[in-house]
């Protein structure tokens, strides 16, 4: 019954696992929002990935093929949103909500014959003796592949957004689509590709839940993870490394409060559960009020439709 009973090393290792699905979905949505598109359908894409990944993994008995299928399925279902908002100029907020509704129903239909089945196990990567190192072993060398993929993805997105031509184009499109268009950038194409990337990441995040974290298929199993991912992007003020920090913070708060309970501390769980959102709002306020840091505010064209006149 003291803080000493909570081992920080194991705490960190387990919060990394808890954070991975929301991190994967968030890093995808971050790119989408950087391109100026607000896709509220993350939950729908995650659950589609969860069921597709599960079904393929069970059928092929190979979890990695399942993950691949989840990526494809997430990207495909996101194309519904892309067609609606980018080609048919439908409102993004409404289309995103419709996508979530559709995804939840569609996945439940597809998954009906996969209830109560155990998927093939996703092994942890083998680092040999490194795993047994004190402190760094459990934190760095004792996870399944997707934990590393999620971190690598953060690094790749960060690098790509900041140091590649494609990244600059994407940011220009998100900041001001009219000027980007005037500069000759293909606004619609950039956005459709971003949406596909976001769908793929969300799908993979969903598969992490159904194949690694739980692992089982039940309808509605994402249980709001997609919405947390949306909050996380805001918390990160659209910066990849902050998304990582934020995911670990969100995951950390959850894991820590459960650990504190398990260790016998009396904590007001029902109020503590609000804290990540309150913190996110505060972060958002600080970001947007600080004029010197305007670059951290929301992308200028976020949520607005673009139609090239002429």
């Amino acid at each position, binding site marked *: 019954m003291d803080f000493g009973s909570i081992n920080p090393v194991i705490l960190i290792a387990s919060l990394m696992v808890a954070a991975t699905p929301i991190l994967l979905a968030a890093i995808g949505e971050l790119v989408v929002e950087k391109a100026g598109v607000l896709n509220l359908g993350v939950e729908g894409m995650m659950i589609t990935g969860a069921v597709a990944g599960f079904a393929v993994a069970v059928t092929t008995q190979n979890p990695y093929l399942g993950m691949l299928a989840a990526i494809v399925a997430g990207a495909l279902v996101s194309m519904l949103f892309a067609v609606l908002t980018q080609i048919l100029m439908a409102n993004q907020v409404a289309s995103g909500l419709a996508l979530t509704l559709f995804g939840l129903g569609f996945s439940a239909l597809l998954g*009906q014959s996969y209830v*109560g089945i155990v998927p093939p196990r996703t092994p942890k990567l083998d680092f040999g003796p490194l795993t047994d190192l004190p402190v760094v072993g459990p934190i760095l060398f004792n996870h399944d592949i997707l934990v590393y993929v999620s971190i690598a993805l953060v690094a790749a997105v960060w690098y790509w957004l900041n140091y590649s031509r494609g990244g600059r184009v994407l940011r220009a499109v998100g900041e001001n689509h009219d000027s980007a268009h005037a500069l000759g950038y293909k606004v619609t194409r950039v956005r459709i590709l971003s949406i596909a990337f976001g769908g793929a990441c969300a799908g993979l995040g969903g598969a992490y839940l159904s194949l690694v974290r739980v692992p089982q298929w039940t309808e509605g199993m994402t249980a709001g993870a997609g919405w947390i991912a949306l909050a996380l992007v805001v918390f990160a003020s659209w910066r990849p490394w902050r998304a990582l920090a934020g995911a670990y913070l969100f995951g950390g708060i959850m894991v820590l409060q459960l650990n504190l*309970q398990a260790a016998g501390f009396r904590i007001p769980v029902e109020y503590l559960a609000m804290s990540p959102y309150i913190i996110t709002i505060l972060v958002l306020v600080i970001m947007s009020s600080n004029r010197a840091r305007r670059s951290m505010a929301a992308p200028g064209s976020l949520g607005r439709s673009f139609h090239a006149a002429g």
Partner: protein
Amino acid sequence: MKRRELLATSAAALGLAAVGTGARAQSPLKVGFVYIGPPGDFGYTYGHDQARLAAQEHFGSAVETSYVENVPEGPDAERIMTQMALSGADMIVATSFGYGPSLNAVAQRFPNIAFEHATGYLQEAPNVSLFSARFYEGRAVIGTIAGRMTTSNKIGYIASFPIPEVIRGINAAYIHAKKVNPDVELSVVWVFSWFDPAQEAAAAQALIEQGCDIIMQHTDSTAPLSVAQERGALTFGQASDMTQFAPDVHLTAIIDNWAPYYIERIQAKLDGTWAAENVWLGIGAGEVAFAPFNDRIPAEVQEEANALIEAIGSGAYHPFTGPLNKQDGSAWLAEGEIADDGTLLGMSFYVEGITGEIPG
């Protein structure tokens, strides 16, 4: 043991129910089920749906069952029940306590329809019957097994919401673990959700890290079992046999077996003898059952558990038998005294020895 308590039987309801079925002797009896979750949850709603299918098979063409899943409590539930009533249902079964206010309102409008409400507590019409299962009897049995099998003397318990049903289960498990192992400690983690796989998994992880080597759960997903399997902690299934999710460490499961009750009540409705009741059935009636014991449970523990099942089932033993004190040390039950159902139904306190507080 008195297996059935007739707390509320009304002659008027009897008469009305009889008239209701008599008029429809030829066409099949229609039974509508209102589920709180999806039948595919492999937990609570799955149990009810298995029972529905069993009843359907038992009666064949004499009975026609249908269901609506994922029904939110409140106006939606009320509308669905009314529409079922209008579609000619003779009996409506609703599976969540939160349907209570709606169900009673609908029942008052359709006095000829038999309403069966699982885990409810409101009975404001003569045609509302309440039924529930004494799952705490099952918890007493797995508590005993846990108390015998823990080596760290720390048992973890993943709890959903602080309601009497859950608190009763915690108390029953603790009392019986303590009985066979005085050194046992219980850690309760509240996740404030019935179904959140990610959080349940994290809770199981946290408990194992705190030294618990046995995990019990009162939430619906199989996520904690998978964690236990991976970490080598022992565990129990919830609501149905979950062996396949944790073949090495799944010791047994408390199985919700509603089929005998459904079959009996539908039969009564067919016979025109249906009357509102308030029953709370347990191991004795077969409503609370167990999955096959894992071979890891030593023979003598299996014997002990079976003896307890037998004693509870026959009514020779009640899991809440004094002497028992409340958590604050105040006396609750004297030596040999048995808890009354009223207290159990509204249980909102821990028994002595459990550390931590009930939130809320």
